[in-house]
């Protein structure tokens, strides 16, 4: 059953990516602005402009451009960025680790905080403690991530400037890395001051991304914990004299986690999409910030590469979540 579901999902990956590529390609080709016009020096001759146009393939029909680009992509060549004049794949791969570290950090923090809130809320049912937790969750959920980011900037740039509000790392520390996974690498090699500096920069953007996600996790998990606690096996454990804490953690949590994981999958893609704006707000050098610059500069190859990268991440995440849910759920495991 799992294998059949997986197979049918895998079969859809390539057509979906192809669809994304077509939509974005056509969309960008109807742009009224001319990307070449932005890169020519004043006084360039018409022949120069034509030569540039031909260099980027912009002199052909949309279908021909698409075919050319697609065959390049199939061979790992995403073209050259018009505004940065570098290989698109290299640019994206150079920035991707920053976004993955930020999103990963935010997701981990959100799941931990959400689960803690849900357990506390379930444990404190019908007490003022539960109402307090419900109120916190409602506020965290009601405000979108970029507004949290701006709020943090307001607080941490004006009221209490204790944490950095822009960039990924202090410029002086950004040396001696052999990968772009700065955080993972600095932890793996035991460079604790560098890791600490990276974390201090990541705290606020990660928290902004994490808050709405944590709230969703808390709300759904708390509801299914309450439901699970009423199941026969949980009542049985209670009748046998186990403490509520034990029942919540050992009996209820593993079963209540399944719907939460399924929902968290969708939410993680929202979180990843949220990096676009949050990176912008905190001047964090990931692919989201790069994407906004690419749009403003009408850098068609770079926009295409970045949108496709995001789409690939979204699809991969959803696939992973489906597999995890299937593995967790005993009803799907059989058969």
């Amino acid at each position, binding site marked *: 059953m799992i294998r059949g579901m997986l197979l049918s999902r895998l079969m859809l990956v390539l057509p979906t990516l192809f669809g994304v590529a077509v939509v974005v390609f056509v969309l*960008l080709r109807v742009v009224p602005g001319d990307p070449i016009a932005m890169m020519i020096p004043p006084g360039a001759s018409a022949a120069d402009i034509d030569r540039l146009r031909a260099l980027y393939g912009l002199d052909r029909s949309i279908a021909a451009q698409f075919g050319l680009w697609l065959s390049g992509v199939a061979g790992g060549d995403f073209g050259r960025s018009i505004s940065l004049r570098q290989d698109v794949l290299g640019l994206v791969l150079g920035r991707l680790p920053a976004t993955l570290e930020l999103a990963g950090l935010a997701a981990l923090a959100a799941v931990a905080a959400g689960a803690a809130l849900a357990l506390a809320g379930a444990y404190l049912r019908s007490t003022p403690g539960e109402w307090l937790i419900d109120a916190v969750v409602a506020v965290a959920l009601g405000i979108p991530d970029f507004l949290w980011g701006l709020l943090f900037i307001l607080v941490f740039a004006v009221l209490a400037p204790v944490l950095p509000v822009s960039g990924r790392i202090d410029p002086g520390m950004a040396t001696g890395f052999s990968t772009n996974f700065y955080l993972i690498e600095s932890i793996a090699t035991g460079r604790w001051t560098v890791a600490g500096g990276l974390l201090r920069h990541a705290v606020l953007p990660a928290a902004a991304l994490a808050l709405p996600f944590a709230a969703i996790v808390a709300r759904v998990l708390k509801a299914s914990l309450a439901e699970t606690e009423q199941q026969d096996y949980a009542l049985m454990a209670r009748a046998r004299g186990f403490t509520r804490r034990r029942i919540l953690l050992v009996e209820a949590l593993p079963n209540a986690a399944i719907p939460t994981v399924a929902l968290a999958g969708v939410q993680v893609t929202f979180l*990843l*999409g949220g990096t676009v704006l949050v990176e912008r707000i905190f001047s964090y050098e990931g692919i989201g910030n790069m994407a906004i610059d690419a749009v403003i500069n009408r850098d068609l190859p770079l926009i295409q590469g970045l949108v496709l990268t*995001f789409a690939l991440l979204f*699809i991969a995440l959803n696939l992973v979540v489906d597999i995890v849910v299937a593995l967790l759920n005993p009803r799907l495991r059989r058969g």
Partner: protein
Amino acid sequence: MADLTTPALPRRRRAALNPRVAIGGAGLLLLLGCAVLAPLLAPHDPLEQDLFSTLLPPSWLAGGDPAFPLGTDGLGRDVLSRLIYSTRVTVVVALVAATLAGMIGSLLGLVAGYAGRAADQALSRLIDVWMAFPPVLLSIVLAAVLGAGLGSVIAAIVVIDWTRFARVVRAETMVQARMDYVTVARSLGLPGPAILMREILPNLLPLILTLLAVEMGIAVIVEAILSFVGLSVAGDTATWGGMIAEGRQVIRQAWWVLAFPMGCLVLTIFAFTLFGDGLRAAIDPVRRR
């Protein structure tokens, strides 16, 4: 065939009695009132620059001027007046974009849910493609492609968010299509479009209205995002998102330029959320118990 739908009156009354609907609705009426009466409420022209009084703090702080109750921005424009005039863009975008997205999405969802496997497959694959886009990035790309202007912002929101309606309406249409009243209508010889529009659609309307309330809140957020990035309405038209972007620049000198539009945005989002949640709770028979 209105008598085949579930009784509407008690449901409507329950929705009005719900405190969340009442509080959220009051907030939304306030928003609408500000938008309509902006010229009467605003103490200044929102575009009027006074370069001798730039970045004045709110009037109750030291150095504030009572003529500018919430202070001025970097060009000496009155923050309060700009906040009030911004509600016009907010209200128009919320109403028009959400309604259009709702109409297009619901129509596609109805057809896909009723017209059989081929139509359903086509729509589902299209939705798969849409769900693979990061929505914020897609809206930014779209707004850039379409150029500045209220119409572009609305179009960008509709193009992104029709799927919210299509997904839910498609699933619910499938449920309804299996019900007895649809079978009866079909055996009476009613054509497909008539069954969809006159029999199934009325039963989906409460659901669609709830989705609309949620979508309006989302449209307000997306408009704010686009004007924050500088891709919304043209020029110096006041928008909360644009004011937030300006406030971000001068945050160390003048926190109020950022704080007040953020507060307005947050309150508006909460009003829409309360209203939508309350409606859903009042309409959904499972959650009503």
